[in-house]
């Protein structure tokens, strides 16, 4: 129909499909729950599709969709606070899996520590530390100043290192791992008895 500046062969769907694995990873890191994370991503897909005319081919689809996902996540969180049943320790239990034991850092401990960070710091660490975005790109996505992003990442790193202790820094210490799991199970018991 009307001519636009979108190349004829440009396939929005193909490009969006390519970033879906990243959206799922970001969403899961944000909310800590695989099922809820996938709901967020599907909502993001619908919104991205509806807004596809505003996407500029040649720019980062990953950054563009991350902004949408972030907004979906924040408005959901504001509306119902994860349907009122969110609990970091429970989330950790659901996500717990025997991965990463060979290098001394228990992935379950890391997930639990991540979920104890403030949402802003968790997001910062996910974008820069896990997603590989530059500080500038991450600041763009989180709609904050670059300096703010840098300080969030620095603070998040410090908190994480505090929580993980020697494990996080040097990798080794089955003792602290055992302790944190005992504590985690105790917390779970508390949750279960509510």
């Amino acid at each position: 129909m009307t001519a636009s500046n979108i190349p004829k062969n440009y396939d929005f769907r193909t490009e969006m499909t390519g970033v879906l694995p990243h959206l799922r990873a970001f969403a899961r890191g944000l909310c800590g729950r695989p099922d809820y994370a996938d709901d967020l991503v599907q909502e993001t897909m619908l919104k991205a599709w509806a807004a596809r005319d505003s996407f500029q081919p040649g720019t980062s689809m990953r950054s563009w969709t991350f902004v949408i996902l972030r907004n979906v996540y924040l408005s959901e969180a504001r509306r119902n606070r994860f349907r009122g049943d969110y609990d970091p320790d429970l989330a950790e239990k659901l996500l717990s899996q025997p991965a990463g034991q060979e290098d001394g850092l228990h992935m379950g401990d890391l997930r639990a520590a991540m979920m104890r960070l403030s949402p802003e710091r968790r997001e910062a660490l996910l974008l820069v530390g896990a997603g590989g975005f530059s500080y500038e790109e991450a600041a763009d996505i989180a709609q904050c100043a670059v300096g703010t992003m840098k300080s969030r990442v620095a603070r998040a790193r410090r908190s994480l290192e505090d929580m993980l202790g020697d494990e996080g820094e040097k990798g080794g210490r089955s003792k602290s791992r055992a302790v944190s799991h005992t504590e985690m199970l105790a917390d779970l018991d508390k949750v279960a008895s509510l």
Partner: protein
Amino acid sequence: MSSTPEKPGKNSVQRSGRAKPVWAEGLRRMYDEVVDEQLPDDFVALLKKLDKSGDSQ
């Protein structure tokens, strides 16, 4: 929004090779593990649905 060009469908992410604490490796792995998962069926179904609803020229 200013953003950099990125190849579509590229699942691996470029990162600096500088030495980092173990938790940083774990963080990447947490992310990459999800990236490497197969896309669930309901995502594939939703993509098909979007295709049909969209401009099917």
